[in-house]
């Protein structure tokens, strides 16, 4: 086995291990989501926009919700990757956002939170 192939395999293994380590736990994420509850609800807009329909939705696009100009201009579609980036430090990723929150700096906590959001946004509450 060439040294290059071995290095490649090791890198792939390391990446796999990192993915496994960051596999989100929705149960843990549900508890983390309680931090969001002052500003967000699943099925209704609050201080922040509703979370039902979050995955696959363009940022700043919930009808009738009053977003900051910064969020309206933020051209991403919410998915695991874009949420992970945003939630790490919302005000740094979208300067001018009204989500004036320091974020969830712990990658595992973010993975848990996103895993919960994926589950919750598929729940009966969101299918109504």
């Amino acid at each position, binding site marked *: 086995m060439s040294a290059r192939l071995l290095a490649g395999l090791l890198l792939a293994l390391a990446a796999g291990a990192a993915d496994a380590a960051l596999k989100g736990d929705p149960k843990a994420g549900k508890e983390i989501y309680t931090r969001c*509850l002052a*500003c967000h609800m699943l099925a209704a807009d609050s201080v922040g926009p509703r979370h039902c329909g979050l995955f696959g939705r363009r940022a700043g696009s919930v009808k009738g919700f009053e977003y900051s100009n910064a969020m309206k201009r933020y051209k991403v579609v919410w998915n695991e990757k874009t949420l992970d980036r945003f939630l790490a430090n919302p005000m740094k990723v979208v300067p001018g956002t009204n989500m004036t929150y320091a974020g969830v700096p712990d990658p595992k906590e973010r993975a848990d939170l996103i895993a919960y959001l994926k589950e919750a946004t598929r729940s009966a509450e969101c299918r109504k």
Partner: protein
Amino acid sequence: MSFLIVPKDIAVARARRAFLGKSGLVLSGAAVALLAGRDALAATKGGKSAAGDVRILNTALGLEYQGIAAYQVGAESGLLQKPVLDLAVTFQGHHKEHADVLAKTITKLGGKPVSAKAKYDFPVQNLKTQADVLRFAAGLEKGAVSAYLGAVPLFGNHDLAKAAASILGDEAMHWAVLLNALGEAPVPVAFVS
């Protein structure tokens, strides 16, 4: 079945009154810090830091308006019995004081305070008992603690951060009292997050 832990003797009731009185003092401290017109506050006015601080304060103000509306729903639900009803009205009063101070501070910094929403979509269909109302309020208060905790380190002005931390303390006390009224551990963790 009542979920409410009613104070069994005068000493406990006295402690509760003293507790509520102290939380009022905490708010007064915040109000003084915010409205004192300190040099540091004046120095940030109109600058980049002030714009960021105004945005944070406006988000907090929106949160406080929501809290006021939520306690109004609880108070008008007919589900709260005394002394829980009195607690709800007291806590709503704190949120009104927070909102008043926040709005004045935003104006002082050159910003425009957000208004309360015309309508809040609270899950009223799920509120069938006093315990439901208490749990709903406790969830909002816990969320408010997290929201302020996530906002405190973002302020450019340290006086505002201190004042926001003071409001955080008040919200945390609300959360603890509500948990206690539900018969749950009032302080379930050593650190809030």
